[in-house]
Structures are given as structure tokens and as C-alpha cells.
């Protein structure tokens, strides 16, 4: 972990005047999988897009840096990189897959063509060789009759197959980091499990790091080595996945965990607890802790004065809560 592959440092960004991320820092080591968990509006997707610098035009990075260590060891500051260096890294060293595999694939091109396009953008090789590599990758990703499927159009494939095609596009150049923005949300539960299993296997085989974005802690548990919880654009908790899930420190993380259905849970408990209230309006956060209005552990006079700092808890964990220590004991 001495030289992280990706280091986001004090990143803030805003859509117009509305902040989406506030001073977010994180790091992903080589081959490590970090899962960003948050509700809609927490800023998690903006974070993934910021690393790729694919944010919509209205978004503006207002502070911070995104440092990426390339294969050659050189560090690129993505937040300030020019178009040429971004193009060199996108698809080649950083791959990305999205939530909706149907709309993320171009409807008018054959899927083989779309994979080959990614490959030939970054590597000089003859069409036939590119074709062969693309088909081999598809087969490796569990697409049956891969060579024939190369000729299919996106609308001719099922959702699970489409997401495998998206993964093939992202991985065809062997990137060292894969950003996956809710890649299983649009899929059936059984297909979800297959795709998660596939992503885990690929990371293992290739030593590829994974930045996985989800709203679902149950999914996070499947793939994460470390978990980072975002709330209203701020990091509220970060730590090793096993520890965060076994003993969440932040009341928000705890509430998220309680709202995940579990096999073998108490049979009498038929209603899953939901978190009351909603994510606050990002333009008008409460003066204290952003979670205070929904928090079961809220203490007037303490939590509503100033935002709590993100503090170290032990050596590997951090939490943004005044009462974390008190609540943990």
C-alpha cells in the first residue's frame, strides 16, 4: 500500500452551485477492491466518473487531485490532465462499466465491432488478430458461442450477456483498474451473482484493482476488500470490508446494514427496518453532521453544531462521528 494505484485527495466537485462531493480522499492499491457504498445522491457515481473525467459538462472539480500510477510508473494527475493523456489512459489502463448495459452499448454496431474498436484504439494490430482476441475474451467471460455472438447487435442479447460484452470492452486492453458503477443493479438476481463472481475471478486472475460503486451493502460484501461509505458527498466511514460489516462504526453504516435482507435472519422479523427520512438537499446541508436529522444516536448540542471530522479508529479504519467511540464500546 506504499504506492497506491489510485489516490484521490481532498476531491470536491459541484454541479453548478450544488456540491456533489466534499473533500473526499481515498486510495486503491494494486489488485485491491474498494467498494463505494451510498444512497442515490450521495455522490458515488460522480466519484467514479470524476476518476475517468467523464463528468457531464455542468460538473466542475472545485478542489483536490486524482493521482493515477500508470504501468510505466509515471503518475498522472487526472483532475488536471489534458485530453490526450486522458484518452491514453481511458480504456487502456482504466476500464469502466456502467449500470445499464443496454443503453451503454451503441445499438447500431455489432458487439464484436465495439470490442475491437476499444482494442485497436490503443494497440496496433491487424483486424483479424484483434477479432480473435476479442472473441477469445468473450469466451473467457462465459459468453457461449463467442465467435458467432461477435456478429450480434446489442438488442439481440440478454441483459447478462450485454454486461459481459461491456466487461469485455473494458478489459480488452488489460487495464490495471476497473471502475464498475452499479454493474449489477439492472440485472436479475441470479445473473447479478454470476457477474459478481466473474468480476472477482477477473480481478484475481489479472491482479486488477476494482473500484466498485453500489447502493447495496449486500453486493458490497461480495466483492469488497475495503468499504468506503459516502453520505451527502462526504466519506463517513472507511475500513476493511470484514470489519466494517461485522462492526460498523457509523450509525449510517449500521442502518444500511440493518436494511439488507439476510439468509437465516430471525424468522419473526418480517419487516426490514428502513432508514427514516431522506438524504438532505446537497445545497443546504444541516450545520452539523449531515446524517444528524435521521440519526438514532443524535445528541442535540453535539451533533448539530459543526460537522464531525473524519477520524482514525485504530490503524485501518476511519469514521466521521462524534459518538463513534462511545457507541462502539
Amino acid at each position: 500500500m506504499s504506492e497506491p494505484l489510485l489516490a484521490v485527495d481532498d476531491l470536491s466537485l459541484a454541479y453548478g452551485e450544488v456540491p456533489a462531493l466534499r473533500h473526499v480522499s481515498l486510495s486503491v492499491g494494486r489488485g485491491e477492491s474498494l467498494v463505494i457504498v451510498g444512497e442515490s445522491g450521495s455522490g458515488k457515481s460522480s466519484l467514479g466518473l470524476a476518476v475517468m473525467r467523464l463528468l457531464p459538462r455542468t460538473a466542475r472539480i472545485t478542489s483536490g487531485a486524482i493521482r493515477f500510477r500508470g504501468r510505466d510508473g509515471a503518475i498522472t494527475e487526472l483532475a488536471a490532465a489534458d485530453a490526450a493523456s486522458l484518452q491514453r489512459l481511458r480504456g487502456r489502463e482504466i476500464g469502466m462499466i456502467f449500470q445499464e448495459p443496454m443503453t451503454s452499448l451503441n445499438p447500431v454496431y455489432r458487439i464484436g465491432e465495439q470490442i475491437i474498436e476499444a482494442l485497436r484504439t490503443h494497440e496496433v494490430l491487424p483486424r483479424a488478430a484483434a477479432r480473435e482476441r476479442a472473441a477469445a475474451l468473450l469466451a473467457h467471460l462465459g459468453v457461449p458461442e463467442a465467435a458467432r455472438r461477435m456478429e450480434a447487435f446489442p438488442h439481440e442479447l440478454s441483459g447478462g450477456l450485454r454486461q459481459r460484452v461491456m466487461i469485455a470492452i473494458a478489459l480488452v486492453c488489460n487495464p490495471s483498474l476497473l471502475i464498475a458503477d452499479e454493474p449489477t443493479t439492472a440485472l436479475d438476481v441470479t445473473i447479478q451473482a454470476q457477474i459478481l463472481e466473474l468480476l472477482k475471478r477477473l480481478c484475481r486472475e489479472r491482479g486488477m484493482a476494482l473500484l466498485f460503486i453500489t447502493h447495496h451493502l449486500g453486493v458490497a460484501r461480495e466483492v469488497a476488500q475495503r468499504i468506503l461509505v459516502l453520505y451527502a458527498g462526504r466519506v463517513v466511514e472507511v475500513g476493511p470490508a470484514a470489519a466494517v460489516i461485522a462492526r460498523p462504526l457509523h450509525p449510517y453504516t449500521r442502518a444500511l446494514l440493518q436494511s439488507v435482507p439476510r439468509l437465516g435472519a430471525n424468522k419473526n422479523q418480517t419487516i426490514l427496518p428502513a432508514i427514516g427520512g431522506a438524504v438532505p438537499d446537497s445545497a443546504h446541508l444541516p450545520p452539523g453532521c449531515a446524517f444528524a436529522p435521521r440519526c438514532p444516536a443524535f445528541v442535540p448540542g453535539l451533533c448539530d453544531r459543526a460537522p464531525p471530522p473524519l477520524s482514525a479508529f485504530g490503524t485501518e479504519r476511519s469514521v466521521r462521528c462524534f459518538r463513534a467511540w462511545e457507541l462502539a464500546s
Partner: protein
Amino acid sequence: MLDYLAGRFGQLLLVLFGVSVVVFVTMHLLPGDVATLLLGDRATAASLARLRHQLGLDQPVIVQYWRFLAGALSGDFGTSLRDNRPAFGEVLAAFPVTLELTLSALLLAVTIGVPLGVVAALKEGTWIDTAITTPTLFGVSMPVFWLGLMALLLFSEKLGWLPVGGMMPIGIHMARPTGLSIVDAALSGRAALVWQAVLHLILPAATLATIPLALITRITRGEMLASMHLEYVRTARAKGLPEGRVIRAHILRNALIPVLTVIGLQLGLLLSGAVLTETIFSLPGLGRLMVDAILARDYPVVQAGAVFVATVFVLVNLGVDLCYAVLDPRIRRQ
């Protein structure tokens, strides 16, 4: 794909059948009948009856329609009431003039309009966008006859750069195997004639191109803006494609599909609706022929023209639909 073709072809036959009925019925709905119109005030009952018999008007309507349809299928709409030449022949002779005018206008509109629309979309919200879209608003709302006259006054009368009208300088004779003046001039092997043909075409083509140019610019811009923010465009960027390729292969490629519809519709409209332009620039095209025939109550020519224009319109649309199927794989499957 074959199913699709067969289906489209069936629709085409249905539409043409409908057109033939409408054209036929229109003739029969007119006050009085053709014989009265032809013979005028001095007609006697006997001469009317004779003419009606000659024209087949004393037959049952269904028989008349059958004759009309059978004739139409073999290109026989009767003879022009003005000069006794075959009505369909007159339509065919006028068509190349209109075709040449329409294709030139559309070529101008597409080659200028699509790039303008692309640039306006890429520069959305800047002064460049405004500089392109504002004139297009005038373009779509400008009356053609006014525009044509102004262009004629400026470029022909005042500046003397371009000819006033017609297709060739007066007194020049050349063989007209195709009826398309540029092609015929080229076939004659005389470069000066080709130049003359182009000069004569510039003003009418530019006038006729105004509305389609403005429309195509606006639609291209709108479609570009709509596809620019689609998720697969984001995927294309995530692959690391250079921006130029993202625009050409992913944004424009998909934006052009709806633009094609507009081009097809405009082609059909221009082929049948170049009346004003042909009149202003004294071109002996289909529009002019139709107006003259209507004014002279030359029914065979009107009918032949109407059926011909409808057929061309339907064929053009069929062509557009086929292009669609090539451009958009999702359509092929339906």
C-alpha cells in the same frame, strides 16, 4: 429482411391503389362533367351525348374506373386536351427538369445543412451556434416566391452574375437524350454548355434549397444534441477514443438516422412542389406543367401528373425506409 421488403412492397401497392381511387373520384366529383367543360356553352344535347360516349362517360362508374386503372397501369392517361399529345408523355418530358432541380437543391441542402448542424451542436450555446441557428429560423419561414424574386433581382438584374431564367441561353440547341440539362451538356462534349447549364441551375436550386437547408440544419443540430448525452457515447469516451471519432462514429452516425427521414420527405415534397420556383425561373418542369394543366382544365395531364408524383413520392419513401434498415439494425428485425 426479405419479409420486411415484401411487407413494404405490399404497402406501396396499397398506397398507389388509394391514389388511383382519389384521382379518379376527384374527377367525378367536379361540378358538371368533362364533356360539358370541353364543349362549353354552345353544346347541344346530341353533341354532349356523342362526346360522353366517346369518353366512355356513359358507362357505369365501376367500368370507367376499371378503364382508367387499366390505362394508368400501361401509362395511358389519354391525350392532353390542349395539344392532343399523350398526357403521360408530357409528364415524362417535364420530369427530368424537376428532377435535376430537386436533386441539385437537395445536394446543396444536405452538404451544407448537415455540417452546419453538427458545428452548431458542438458549439451549443456559443455565438457560433446562434450565428447558425438564427438564419435557419428565417430560412424555414421565408416565402419561396419572395426569396426567389429577390435573388433574381440581385444576382441577375443588378449584378448580372447569373442568368435570369430558363435552362440554357436562348438560341443554343443541343440534343436532349436524358432531359437533364447538365448531363445532356456533358454528353454533347462541350464544356461551355455544361458551365451554362450549371449557371442556369444555381439560382433556382439555391432558392429551392432554402427551406430544406434550414430544416436539415435544425434537425441535425437537435439530433446531435440528443445523442451527445447518451450512455453509449460515454462508453465510447471511456474506451479512450479520440473525440473526433466519438463524434463521427458514435454521435453523428446515430443522429443521422432521423435526419434521413427529413431528407426523404423533402425529396418527395420538392419533386412534387417545385411549382413556385419553376414558375419564377421559367423552367419547364413538372410543377409548371401541372399548374398550366390545372388552369387549362387539362384533366388527362392533371391525372397523369398526380399519379406520377404520388408514385415517385411513395418510391422515395420506400427508398428511405430501406436506408433505415441498413442504418439501424433494430428495424431489420421487426
